[in-house]
Each structure stands twice: as structure tokens, then as C-alpha cells.
């Protein structure tokens, strides 16, 4: 596994200029660091409706996905407006950037230490598979003791890209492919495994 440096990231972006290959969009030069790309918080959030969701049981996945509006509320915050994340609260957000990885590049998303020091965790499932396309859902948790004010477009995450070895025989399409904002969990695969 080799982490891509700035020059290689730019080379890969150059290959993806026409719509295939590595794409991170929207993007400006200053987001690209020595071996990572800064990512921003998007405008949409999914907040769980605790009063309607007694517990999350994947055996009820069918019911949850059918009645998704009962269990979640999508909130859209305009640029400059506040979103307050309370201690121990989990909400789903997404990166402003839409990412497309070619089939030989994988990536890891991680929080920025500045925000980590406030107690903000941005992602727990940090691996992004090759061939993924979409905005990355962020599992935002405030592990600190005081409420945090979040704003859309805050630079909260970093993307570290690395080249994979070997070739993918078949492309396993992610169930979260082409998402343009946060997505509610889909338990289909987990449920199939449990059966």
C-alpha cells in the first residue's frame, strides 16, 4: 500500500478530467495537502427521531427501510447557518465533495486533529473501496462534554488515497453508490449474512 502524494494525486485528477478516473468535486488547489485532500462538511444532515425509533434491530430492516421517514429527519442547513451537535449525539452528515475512485485506488477518511481535540468524531467506517462514487457519509458524534456548533463547508475531514495491489475481478457495487448526501443505513447485506 502506498499513499499518494500531492503530485500523484494531481496526476490522477488529470486522468479523471473527462469524467473517469479519480474525481473530487468541487475542489480547489488549496485543499490538496502533501499526501491528503481536505474535505468539507455538506449542507444535509440526518437526525434520528428518537421518539419513533425504539431501537435499531436489523431483523426489522425491512420495516425500517419502508418507514424510513418515521425514523429519520433530513435537515438541510444553508451556508453560514448553524447545526448544533450535542454531547453523545450521533447524526449523519456527508462531505460536500463528491468522490469517484478508480478501480486501483482506495482511500481512508479521517478527522482533522483540530476538530478531534473538541471531541468531534467524523467517521467510524473510514475505508472507501475502489470504484466508489458519491459523497461520503460522515457519522458525526460529539464525544466531548459541551455542544459543538457545526457549519456547512467546515473543513472537518481528510482523504488519504492509496493505490491498491492487484486487479479487481468484479466490481462489487457499493449499496451507497452515487449518493449525493447522507444516507440512512441499509441493512440488506447484514441481514442476508445473518440468515
Amino acid at each position: 500500500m502506498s499513499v499518494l502524494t500531492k503530485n500523484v494525486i494531481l496526476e490522477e485528477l488529470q486522468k479523471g478530467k473527462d469524467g473517469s478516473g479519480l474525481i473530487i468535486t468541487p475542489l480547489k488547489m488549496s485543499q490538496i495537502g502533501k499526501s491528503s485532500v481536505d474535505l468539507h462538511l455538506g449542507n444535509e444532515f440526518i437526525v434520528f427521531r428518537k421518539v419513533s425509533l425504539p431501537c435499531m434491530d436489523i431483523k426489522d430492516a425491512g420495516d425500517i427501510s419502508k418507514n424510513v421517514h418515521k425514523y429519520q429527519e433530513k435537515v438541510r442547513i444553508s451556508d453560514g447557518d448553524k447545526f448544533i451537535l450535542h454531547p453523545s449525539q450521533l447524526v449523519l452528515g456527508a462531505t460536500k465533495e463528491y468522490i469517484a475512485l478508480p478501480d486501483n485506488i482506495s482511500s481512508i477518511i479521517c478527522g482533522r486533529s483540530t476538530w478531534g481535540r473538541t471531541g468531534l468524531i467524523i467517521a467510524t467506517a473510514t475505508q472507501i473501496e475502489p470504484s466508489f462514487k458519491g459523497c461520503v457519509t460522515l457519522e458525526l458524534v460529539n464525544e466531548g462534554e459541551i455542544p459543538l456548533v457545526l457549519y456547512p463547508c467546515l473543513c472537518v475531514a481528510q482523504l488519504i488515497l492509496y493505490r491498491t495491489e492487484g486487479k479487481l475481478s468484479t466490481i462489487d457495487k457499493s449499496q451507497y453508490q452515487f449518493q449525493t448526501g447522507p444516507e440512512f443505513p441499509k441493512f440488506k447485506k447484514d441481514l442476508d449474512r445473518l440468515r
Partner: protein
Amino acid sequence: MSNSALTRIHHQIRIELHSFRNELKKLSVPNYPSKTGNAIIKMLTDKLDKYEETLSRIMGDIEYEDENIVKQSHEKLITKIHNPLVKQDVKFLNWLSKAQTKRVPWSFVHCAEELFQQIIPNHNLLIYCENQYNYGICWSESKTLAPYPYYILSLPGLHRTNILWHTLVGHEIFHPRCNEFIDKYNQKVLINIKNTVTANYRSISSTENSSDLFSDSEKKERIDNITNITHLAWRRAMEELLSDMACVEIFGPAAILAMKAFSACSPKNDIPEPDNNFYPSWQYRFEIVWDNFIKDNLSKLDDVYSEIRNHDIVRCFKEDMLENKRLVEKKEGEGLVKKHPLAKIAYQEFHNLIPDAVDFVKDKTQDVLKWHDEKTLSQIPKLVGRLENGIPPNESVAEINEQEGIYKTHPAVIPAILISGWMYETYWQEKFDADERVMAYKTLSRLILKACEDIQTIEKNQ
């Protein structure tokens, strides 16, 4: 007028004002996709303050012993507070509740507002989704919205995220501008219509088998009535067709395909007649816009076709456009407008004004970026390529230079986004059943909405 009647109306109005304020407070909590929602809430709140001042003043000035003053006060309470509140202001509560971010295609709202500003500068637009199968606009000169300085645009609620259809906002936004043209020619057309109706009175009336039964004064009255009806038919035709022209002038093939998709469930060949308010048939509308705005510009897409890598997309789009061409060349719509005797007169007047109408539309949209502008055309192939690869068609990356650290990009323009979307849609129509790699329509819409959302960020980044 008794004192108790006055007291009753006073209490009723207090309840109405209180409830209205409560509703406004509730509506101020949710998010709106632009500043217009909150600006309207502020305007209504200020208005409520004034109503309350007026209420206190009227009630303070009452001398209960003077029956005339009591009667006048009662009248004032109704005309100055109750009527405007329940007949005008209350409409905004419905619009605002349906204009909240989660109820509208929020990514697209700023694009529609920008287009609106270019066509009607210095005014504000509120966009909401209505649970009806139609697009519509009302504004301060219309009976529905007088006297507010806002324009209210409605989109069909069930098609909220169906961004490709929203190309039709180009038609709605142009509606308020049509009066300038109509007013300019109104008198002349009215005289022409009256002359034609008078000259053809016998043949027009003979359809009703009644022309000989009327006296001269009755005949004159009937001519006036027929003239008025025909004149209204002309106004209707003029307004709809001018708005179609503007939409097609801006969005070109995207507008044609959006009109076609939206009208897919309606009859194409309706005869304009009193029952449908002399509304022009879809077939006639296609013929007018195709002949005057598409036919001569379509060859400008030749260079675009040659740059699109997926020849299947080009083939599907060309086939669709060819089908449209065949459809309009039949000129069935032109025949339909002549079938009703009054529509025949009204649409002849419209027909005579087509060259002036085309010039008017071009003049009023001169500040708007159009589909046949070089900037738009040059972006389309790249945007189609992005969509084909499941990427939002939000930008056209010009240069990435790793040595010099250059990342140069241009935000996509709305006509290019919509045309590339429609190009891909024609391909999608052919493939989605047969090829599982083709994305779902919902995904296509989401990617285009994401593109609309991103263009502001890309502009800021530059």
C-alpha cells in the same frame, strides 16, 4: 349596528391576528433555501404590527353612544384589517409552508432565482411545490397577489426532484414580462379583431343558426361580445406562446424535451375553444418554437456531437430530435387553430405578430446565457461525459498542472447542465431496461441537482 356586533367583530379580528402571528412564528422555525422565505415572514410580521396599531386606533376612537361612529368603525375593522388579512395575507401561509427547504428542490432554487433576476431584475421570487400537476406563477399585477412585491412560482409537488422537468421554469418566469408586448399591440389587435368579426359576423353566427334573429343593437352587442372573447383568446395565445418562446430561446432542446415529457399524458391536438379558454394545443406550441428558435440553430450542436465520446448517447438524442422535427413538420397544430371560428381570428392575429414576438423575446432575454451560446455549447460534451460516469455535471475542468500546481475549472452553466442531462435521458430511455449498468432515473436527477448545488461553491472557489 349594535355595540355587541362591534365587540364580536373586534374579538374575532383579535383572534385572527393572534393566530396569524402564531402561524408565522411556526413558519419562521424551518429552513428556507433562500432569503425570500424569511423576507416574506418579516414583511408579514411588520404588517401584523400595523394591523394591531390600526385596531387599537379604531377601537380607541369609538364613541359608543354615536351609532354612526360605531357603524363606521365596524366597516373600518372589516375593510382595513379583516379582509386584507383573510383574503390576501393568509395565502402566504400556504405558500411559505410549501416553500420550506425540505419541500422544494432546494439545490435548484438559487438557479431559478438567478434566472428570474436576469429576466425581472430587482424583484424577489418565492418557489414552492404545490400538489397539482402544473407549473404556475402569480405576481403583484395579478388578482391573486396584489399588492405584494413578490413573485410566487409553483412546481408540481410529485415531481419535486425531477430536475429535468424544471427546465419549464423558463416558461413561467417569462409570463410577467409578456404584458409589455401585449399592451403594446393590444389596441391595434382589438381593432383588427373587431373588423374581422364584423366582416365575418354572419359566418361566425351561422354556426349558431341565430344571426338573423337579432336586431341591429343586439347584433352590435353580440359583435362586441364576440370581439371580447376573441381578444381574450388572442391574449391567452400570446402569453403562452411568448413564454414558450423564451423558455426555448434559453434552454433550446432541453425546453423542447421538457415540454414533451410534461405533456406526455395530455392530448397533443386539442382545438383551442371556449371550453379550454382557447389554450393553444401542445402540437401548435411545438411548431411555433421549433420553427422560430430551434430549426436554424440545431446545426450548432454538430460540433458538440463530435466531441461526445459515447456515440450511442448522440444517436439517441439525434433520433429524439429527428422525431420532434417530423412531428412539427406535419403542421397539424396550425390546422387545429383554424377549426374554431374565433380561435381562427385570434390565432391569425398572433401569427401576424410572430416576427415582432421573436424580436421581443430575444431582446428581453439578452442578458441570459442561452443554449446556443459558445460557452454553453463548449461545456456540454464534458458534462455528458461526467453524467455517463456517474459524476455530477457541475464543472468543466480546464487545466490541471501538477508541476505548477494549477487546478483551473469553470462552473457549469445551467443551460449546459440541463441539455447534457436531457441528452443522457434520451440514452437512458433506450437503455435502462436492457442494461443494468445504466443508473436509475432518480440517480440521474440527484446528480444533476448536486451539480446545481455545486456551481455556487465552484464560483466562490475561483
